[in-house]
């Protein structure tokens, strides 16, 4: 039962990253590449009717985490207190940037909310990469100081950084060079992803330019991924042991690299949705490979005193998990129906949806 909910949770997170990921990416493109009012309009139209529903995947995944793995929810949300609250603030700015822009027709008003939308999207992409980095690096569970736990074994608290920015320091921080590396991968990957979505859903003038952006950034992404693989052993001495034990897990890295290499052909794609498909594969593969590398751990311990949190020692009881399957199954069918309706109504190019015009 724990394993079932673990797969559900990871699937929901992957869907969240793929869906809201294109919103963040579109925000970054909007910030750096959209010059004319028409381009900006095209971008907000392409995500306007979707971003809210996409964000619900995060909230729903949070709900499932709370219900199925309450100890992990409690431990990680309190331990990552500061960055989580900041993510909330950024989500608020992203949302009001999108929603309020069209309320008043005034150049200054519009440019303020454009910036709010773009900058918060950029920072969110960075923060989510950093968050993933923190999870795989692990934390000082129990806040061990000089060999003694100062809190219960599954609680911890991380400051935003420690002065050395090292992932191997005894007192860790949210930001160190390893987590920031993953954060930058997040920004680059989501920028590519967002560009692909815009190419897919609009007839914008910048689409040709965006294809070049995707192509060039893909080299950067490949380089960063290789660097991260080379340094991964610093945070986990045996980073690939899960894959060697269970070779079928190699499906996840294969998905990652299919996406990554497929994107190099972006300039020759005839169907506009193809690039989006490949960047989705990269995100899906990257996320699943990363969590597979630490499975069944969900939050490793960096000290020898308190044990890792695994999906088995943080789960709710059996009865609750079993009964949840019933309502969850019903809900999933409904959500699928909503999504089909939503994406059918807004199928094709969306340059003229008129999002945010009142």
């Amino acid at each position, binding site marked *: 039962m724990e394993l079932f909910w673990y797969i559900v949770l990871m699937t929901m997170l992957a869907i969240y990253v793929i869906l809201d990921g294109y919103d963040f990416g579109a925000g970054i493109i909007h910030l750096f590449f959209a010059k004319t009012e028409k381009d900006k309009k095209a971008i907000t139209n392409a995500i306007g*009717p979707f971003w809210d529903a996409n964000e619900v995947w995060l909230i729903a995944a949070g709900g499932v985490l709370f219900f199925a793995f309450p100890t992990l929810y409690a431990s990680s949300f309190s331990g990552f*207190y500061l960055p989580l609250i900041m993510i909330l603030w950024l989500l*608020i700015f992203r949302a009001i940037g999108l929603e309020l822009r069209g309320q008043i027709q005034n150049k200054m008003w519009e440019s303020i909310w454009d910036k709010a939308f773009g900058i918060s999207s950029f920072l969110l992409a960075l923060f989510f990469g950093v968050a993933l980095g923190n999870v795989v690096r692990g934390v000082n569970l129990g806040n061990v100081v000089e060999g003694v736990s100062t809190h219960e074994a599954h609680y911890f608290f991380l400051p935003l950084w420690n002065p050395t920015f090292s992932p191997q320091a005894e007192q860790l921080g949210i930001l160190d060079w390893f987590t920031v590396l993953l954060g930058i991968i997040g920004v680059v990957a989501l920028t590519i992803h967002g560009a692909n979505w815009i190419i897919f859903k609009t007839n914008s003038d910048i689409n040709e330019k965006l294809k070049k952006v995707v192509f060039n950034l893909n080299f950067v992404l490949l380089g960063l991924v290789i660097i991260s693989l080379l340094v991964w052993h610093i945070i986990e001495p045996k980073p690939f042991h899960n894959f060697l034990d269970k070779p079928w897990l190699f499906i996840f890295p294969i998905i990652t690299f299919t996406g990554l290499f497929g994107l190099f052909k972006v300039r020759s794609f005839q169907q506009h949705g193809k690039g989006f498909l490949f960047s989705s594969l990269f995100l899906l593969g990257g996320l699943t490979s990363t969590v597979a590398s630490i499975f069944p751990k969900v939050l490793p311990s960096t000290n020898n005193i308190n044990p890792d949190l695994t999906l088995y020692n943080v789960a709710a009881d059996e009865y609750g998990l079993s009964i949840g399957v019933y309502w969850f199954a019903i809900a999933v069918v409904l959500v699928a129906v909503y999504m089909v309706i939503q994406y059918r109504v807004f199928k094709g190019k969306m340059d003229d949806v008129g999002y945010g015009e009142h």
Partner: protein
Amino acid sequence: MEDMLFYDRMQFAFTITFHYLFPQLTMGLSLLIVYFKWKFLRTKIEKYNNAAKFWMKIFALNFAMGVVTGIPMEFQFGTNWAKFSELTGGIIGQTLAMEGMFSFFLESSFLGLFLFGEKLLGHKLHFLTGFLVFLGSWASGYLIIATHSWMQYPVGYEILENGKFVLNNFGALFSNPWLLPSYLHNQAASLVTSSFVVAGIGAFYLLNNKHHEFGKLFIKTGVIFGLISSLLVAFPTGDLAAKNVVKHQPATFAAMEGIFETETGGSEIVLIGQPNMLEKKLDNKIAVPNILSFLTYQDWNAEIKGLNEFDESVHPTNVPGLYYAYHIMVGLGTIFIGLMLLAAVQLFRRKLYKTKWILWVLMFMLPFPYIANTTGWYTAELGRQPWLVYNLLRTSEGASPTVSSGNTLFTLLGFIGLYLLLGMLFLMLAGKIINKGPELEKHE
């Protein structure tokens, strides 16, 4: 450690108070918009469709504010109340996860269609999307109040040796006797807010001598819905909710009503008075004898326990706060019924639109249902203190063990700043929409 708990509580209180200003309008207004749209489908009179369109603009803005301030609520269970989440997540996680899966997806998927899809969908389907958004927002309220009810009156659980609450009866979460009265009470109150907003804006138009057609329509709709909902808030829903408190949280009831000592021969109902916590009595009290006993037990002489019967350790933490919250709610609720009755009589006599002083009162009443809703929730929440789960888990045992007060105050200040900005933006933009008013456009 005391100050740690203080800032955790302040942050939750501040963020939830601000958040709930928006959903209370969302839930009620979605019903009124669906009503306008339905009237249009039935009568084909353009006015109703334009009224729906106008309120949808306010609705969109209000909904966005509700969404962005709602997400911090779900996060805060984990960030600030980690111990509580760890111990009870297997139970309240059920209803909260269901809220995400059943109502947020429904609302968010159809909101876009509802707001931008009128031309694309045609009127009938557009009505349907509105109805689904209404359904989603009411389902959300239902699941939140199911969670709330479990905290007030825990059912279907057992407690393990390690202190964890474990669910053993899923159905009990929904057949909880606390749930239905609270839910209906809350939904009726949300409709009160929306009716007063609609009527208040209508009065604003008439008094300003503009948008006459809409002004009259809004006042009429607001007054009819407002009368029905204000009555429903009091009876039967408020009555049933209060009886739950008497039965299951007698110390809370005593504090709400301001009864320090058990009175023999029937309890009086206190209208006004200040709790004197030093001498354990009410100062400057104005009260009517025996009414409380009758309202509570339908018996003029029934005995109602005073706070003196309960150990100090189970007294509500903030007795004066609870007392005032409850009295403000009840006082305002009574005024709402009176005002709406009067307005309805004038409406029936076809004199309402010319009775200027009632229009002025209707306009100035607009903020007060927000106060009544807020103080109603304070009554429920302060009434549960010092417990998170009534009688089982104390608030002091639920906070995050590793988050220091300095960090919580930092985020609390951040929320205050950010929400002040949101509040100002909302008022400014809502003011702009209201000032522009509904348009008498013909539909294509």
